[in-house]
């Protein structure tokens, strides 16, 4: 069922986010705290480094390997310091109908579009309703859909609704595009009579802005006697502060919300002790906005 991590702030070594904490993203491959599932179906990340060539273009890496065993990734994570990161491990049902390939690894990013997206959840009845979505996707993006996931179509819907897909959009414009895409999905579900609970936890990052969505369509609806998936609302947590690192034996941001210049948002906290983490509310979006030298994390209600 996937796990996602996104970071925006002062540059940090990727190893400190992906590997070092006791419940780091890669440790969640086989030991997630808030999900009774293994996440073995691939890894992907987009990482922005201001000191690199073409700093607005992220370093991208996607693999169908179980990333815990990926020595190349481990070596890169020990070298790269990023001011923004969007990383994802993929978890899928344990059967052979699922397509495991690089095209289905998150995060998704179309050519010429700075915004990347990763998804945690699944859309019930996606095969039935996907062609209803096509009219809402710009042709230049429709032809770039390469994989078979519902997630890539959600991404295509959102970037198609951006005022300037090729530019850096303000957080409010990103949120408006997300609302529009969720509305299109709501209508398509209604047309096809799809009422099963469908989780749509999404994270977007373009290196400058971060938007995260904790949302479920028809939460709590399952067929009688045949409980599919989880009856819990999929989790999402964030924390903010300065100077992410190992402080007093604990991986955390310090300095208080007053001076926060960095934000981490993740499907679940990166540490077993989540005292400094806060839950993103259900049916809500988290926007990270620049405010001078600081960054502020705002919660926005999502009613679709």
């Amino acid at each position, binding site marked *: 069922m996937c796990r996602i991590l996104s970071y925006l702030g002062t540059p940090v070594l990727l190893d400190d986010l992906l590997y070092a904490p006791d419940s780091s993203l890669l440790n969640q491959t086989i030991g997630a705290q808030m999900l009774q599932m293994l996440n073995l179906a691939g890894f992907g990340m987009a990482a922005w480094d201001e000191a690199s060539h073409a700093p607005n273009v992220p370093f991208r890496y996607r693999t169908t390997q179980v990333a815990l065993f990926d020595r190349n990734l481990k070596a890169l994570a020990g070298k790269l310091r990023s001011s923004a990161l969007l990383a994802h491990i993929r978890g899928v049902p344990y059967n052979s109908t699922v397509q495991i390939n690089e095209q289905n690894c998150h995060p998704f990013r179309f050519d010429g579009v700075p915004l990347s997206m990763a998804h945690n959840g699944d859309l019930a009845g996606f095969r039935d309703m996907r062609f209803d979505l096509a009219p809402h996707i710009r042709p230049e993006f429709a032809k770039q859909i390469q994989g078979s996931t519902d997630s890539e179509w959600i991404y295509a819907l959102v970037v198609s609704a951006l005022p300037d897909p090729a530019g850096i959009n303000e957080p409010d414009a990103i949120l408006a595009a997300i609302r529009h895409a969720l509305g299109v999905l709501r209508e398509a579900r209604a047309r096809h009579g799809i009422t099963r609970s469908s989780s749509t936890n999404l994270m977007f990052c373009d290196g400058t802005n971060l938007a995260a969505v904790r949302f479920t369509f028809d939460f709590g609806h399952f067929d009688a*006697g045949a*409980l599919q998936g989880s*009856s*819990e609302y999929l989790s999402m947590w964030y924390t903010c502060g300065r100077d992410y690192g190992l402080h007093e034996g604990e991986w955390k941001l310090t300095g*208080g919300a007053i001076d926060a210049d960095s934000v981490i948002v993740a499907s679940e906290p990166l540490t077993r002790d989540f005292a*400094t983490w806060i839950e993103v509310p259900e*049916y*809500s979006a988290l926007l990270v906005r620049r405010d001078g030298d600081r960054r502020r994390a705002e*919660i926005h*209600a999502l009613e679709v």
Partner: protein
Amino acid sequence: MAQAPAQLAGFDREAWAALLGNASPFAVGAGEVLFRQGDHADALYLVEAGLLEIAARIPGDDNAVISAIRPGEVVGEFALLDDGPRSARVRAVEDTRGLVISGRRFRALLADGSDWAIRLGHALRRLVAARTRQTLERIVAEGHFDPHALRQLHAGPPPVPSRSEAGVLARGLARLKGIEDVVGAGVLLEARRGATVAAPGDSQDGLYLVLRGAVRAAVPRGAMAEQVFVFGPGCFVGLTGHSDGGPQPLLVTAAEEARMVHLPAGTLSALETEAPPWLPALHAAFGRQLVQDQRKANRHLGRSLSLARFNHAGELG
């Protein structure tokens, strides 16, 4: 401590003496930490003398003082109702001493049907509910909400009786394991999205148990609502008021089209007398959710405080 403190009302002399027989003394010096947030939790503390301070860490590694614990009050009660880690740090402001009750011993004697353990369970659920009510009252009064986080307040017509089969809907819900029979004791209702289940200040008639869909509990802010809880399948709605006897603290509406069982107060008190075999499991489920609700209300308050600090940063220089 010759008799039960007010926070643990409901003990007669004999039951209180039995509880004291299962407690040990504790002492902590001024400035010392009794337990830290995130620690493994397995004991309840009854303060006889001194002063403790409860503080929780919030994002950015800030601390927010939640409350003070004075003589005659208890702290650490989550440990006996839920197996999660400590939700806050407790530090002694003055030299403090009292009695400690081990969670392991409490659970063993509860499983044996020991009278003092059953009474303590009731008292702790009432106490946690009262603490949640205090937290909610603080959220209402302080009003540090993010204006963007408010949503349109819906107040549609109330739920109506449903013809679905409650027993079928209850099957397979992990949160109800062992207490599926409880749905047979109530009346199945269905609520359209936006239906009003309860309004703040309403006197409460028992509980609701969500079987499908979801219910939202929120603080009304004019024409808008500040969401605090979302209750999905297997969750009880109205536990705070049912446990502490107070009125409904929040506006409760259907966040999704919902089906839920209403367990009227009369039915619930009859269950206490009849004591069906699944009653202890029901009490345990109440205890777990009360703790989860209190944790969630505290997280909500922590998020609001961190937001307030950020927004006032300029004023503080």
